[in-house]
């Protein structure tokens, strides 16, 4: 199949899903009303609740949800063949992905801007909220581990990446200094720092890390893991304007330019898929169901989106009608991004053996090779294209990772602050988060770590859909459109987590793993089991809440009938 046809198919699904399905739910089921005041207007405080244009929020939501996951998932999942991955990306986004993103924004908007913790407390039960918060900590840890692994494997496999990453960091810090300290013009700052960042990409291709540091150091996982987590440590500890935000600001230009020209390159080159459409039912990491459905998380459906939609975007929507373009529209754009990654993985290698050889270097290497090929059509030299692709992958992973370490610092303080005041210390809480993340990166098996991250992420999606279903039941509205996706996601993710956890723990128990891998894989297996237990506990609470809401509706209807 031709790659352009896949993109056209993606745009067709985008059109149908957004124009018809999302519009129907928005207008007929949830009855979005432009005249109803949103929390952003009612509770406007100029801080969290600010009425914001839908175009600004579109960019904000896209930047918040588009990390490395929609790219890496399809690159790994193509091992089952590109057809199952394509079907899941299109079907998942059409029937589940946008439903979750949009409805999470709507439920928060109709509940005075409450976040998921408060909504769980009110709609499910107080106990469910505590389980959710502890679930979240391990979910964040898995993201930190999975994305940390992406950074480390990318800088080892692509020797141009470290220099580009260093220049990005310098450019970001300089941007912060220019904007906030020296009060320079934003346009001047942007031009200077983005040019500096691109200079780093060029320099990276000319001076690879092995030439600069020696092969031993350039290939040392421990060194790069330290570098990645030191970066995140600084991002969590330093004032946000000094390090984290300006780096993200400069990085966003690099990423968007790369994606924009990369997709144009696909249209110009219009390659055909060279890898098989379907390979086998089960690969090394597991069978197509349930494992593929969690391997491709963002791009089809992702729990992370629901958190961003509810606690960030919903408090800024100035009009109820904006929830559809921002919530649903951005999800479909992310679906296109996942299709782009699928095209890269499926078209640039001539045989499964060539793909496997490249996959051994990590998904970052595959992405960089693909981007280099598509930018090459537009005239960019291959070495420079690979350097560009490598820094893009590092950016996509590390910008989310630094955010996660910052959240883990807050979570440690909140969950363990009462145990000892030491955990409220920002340095100790951040250090702990970095150490846990590093243990996973250095001792866990990458592909299983990715599956566990995907499982936790998809489980978060099913919990978000559970909240939405409970809310719809309480409101007495049609709920099947959220309920059935929730059931599918719940069963699939529980099955995936059980399969992976038992697989890992059985390897540990039978002595198949030794040394450092023993620690990482035991930890990963136990985290997976904990997530399963937490999900079951939440599921039980959810079922009780469903019964309570339906009972209350029936009692209300009976009372109305008696009065009549």
């Amino acid at each position: 199949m031709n790659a352009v046809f896949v993109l056209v198919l993606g745009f067709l699904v985008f059109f149908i899903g957004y124009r018809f399905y999302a519009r129907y739910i928005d207008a007929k089921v949830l009855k979005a009303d432009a005249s109803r005041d949103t929390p952003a207007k009612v509770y406007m405080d100029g801080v969290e609740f600010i009425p914001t244009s839908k175009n600004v929020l579109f960019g904000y939501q896209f930047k918040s949800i588009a990390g490395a996951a929609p790219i890496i998932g399809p690159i790994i999942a193509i091992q089952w063949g590109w057809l199952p991955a394509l079907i899941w990306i299109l079907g998942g986004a059409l029937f589940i992905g946008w439903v979750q993103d949009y409805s999470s924004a709507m439920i928060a908007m109709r509940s005075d801007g409450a976040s998921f913790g408060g909504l769980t407390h009110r709609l499910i039960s107080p106990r469910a909220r505590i389980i959710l918060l502890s679930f979240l900590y391990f979910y964040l840890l898995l993201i930190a581990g999975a994305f940390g692994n992406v950074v480390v494997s990318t800088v080892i496999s692509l020797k141009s990446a470290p220099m580009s990453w260093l220049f990005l960091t310098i450019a970001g810090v300089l941007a912060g200094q220019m904007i906030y300290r020296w009060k320079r013009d934003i346009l001047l700052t942007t031009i200077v720092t983005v040019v500096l960042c691109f200079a780093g990409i060029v320099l990276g291709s000319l001076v690879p890390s092995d030439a600069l540091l020696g092969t031993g150091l350039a290939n040392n996982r421990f060194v790069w893991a330290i570098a990645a987590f030191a970066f995140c440590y600084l991002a969590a500890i330093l004032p946000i304007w000094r390090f984290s935000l300006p780096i993200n600001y400069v990085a966003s230009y690099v990423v968007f330019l790369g994606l924009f020209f990369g997709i144009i390159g696909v249209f110009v080159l219009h390659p055909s898929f060279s890898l098989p459409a379907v390979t086998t039912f089960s690969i090394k990491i597991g069978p197509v169901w349930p494992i593929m459905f969690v391997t491709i998380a963002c791009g089809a459906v992702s729990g992370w989106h629901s958190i961003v939609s509810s606690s960030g975007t919903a408090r800024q929507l100035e009009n109820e009608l904006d929830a559809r373009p921002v919530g649903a529209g951005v999800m479909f754009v992310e679906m296109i991004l996942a299709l782009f990654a699928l095209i890269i993985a499926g078209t640039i290698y001539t045989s499964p053996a060539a793909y496997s050889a490249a996959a051994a270097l990590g998904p970052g290497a595959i992405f960089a090779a693909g981007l280099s090929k598509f930018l090459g059509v537009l005239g960019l030299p291959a070495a420079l294209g690979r350097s560009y692709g490598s820094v893009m992958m590092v950016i996509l992973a590390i910008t989310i990772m630094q955010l996660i370490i910052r959240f883990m610092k807050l979570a440690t303080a909140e969950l363990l602050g009462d145990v000892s005041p030491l955990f409220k210390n920002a340095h100790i809480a951040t250090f702990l988060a970095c150490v846990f993340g590093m243990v996973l990166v250095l001792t866990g098996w990458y592909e299983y770590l990715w599956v566990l991250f995907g499982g936790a992420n998809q489980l978060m999606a099913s919990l978000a859909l559970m909240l939405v279903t409970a809310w719809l039941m309480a409101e007495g509205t049609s709920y099947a459109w959220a309920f059935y996706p929730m059931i599918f996601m719940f069963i699939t993710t529980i099955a995936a987590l059980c399969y992976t956890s038992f697989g890992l723990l059985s390897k540990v128990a039978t002595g198949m793993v030794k040394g450092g891998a023993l620690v990482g894989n035991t930890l990963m297996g136990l985290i997976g089991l904990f997530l399963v237990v937490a999900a079951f506990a939440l599921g039980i609470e959810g079922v009780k809440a469903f019964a309570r809401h339906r009972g209350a509706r029936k009692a209300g209807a009976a009372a109305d009938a008696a009065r009549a």
Partner: protein
Amino acid sequence: MAEGDKKGGLFRAIKDFVYGAAAHDSARSALKSKSSMEHLFMVITVGDMLGVPVMPPYYSLRLLPHLVPKIATWKRRMLREKDLTDGFG
């Protein structure tokens, strides 16, 4: 005219998108920093409204006319129950 509006609209939409993706977070962060400073000031001056008497009421009363516009949103932000999931926004 209509065509011109449309072009302006598209340019504006792209500009807003780029701002949203690149700089909106920075703007919100600056507002949050400002709000933290203001919060401290409010606690010091009218903290007794929340049971935290810091300043003698005489000075609070002198400052009250300047603080009135901010009191409602400040109290709402202070008293709204928050947890970890609020931090993601």
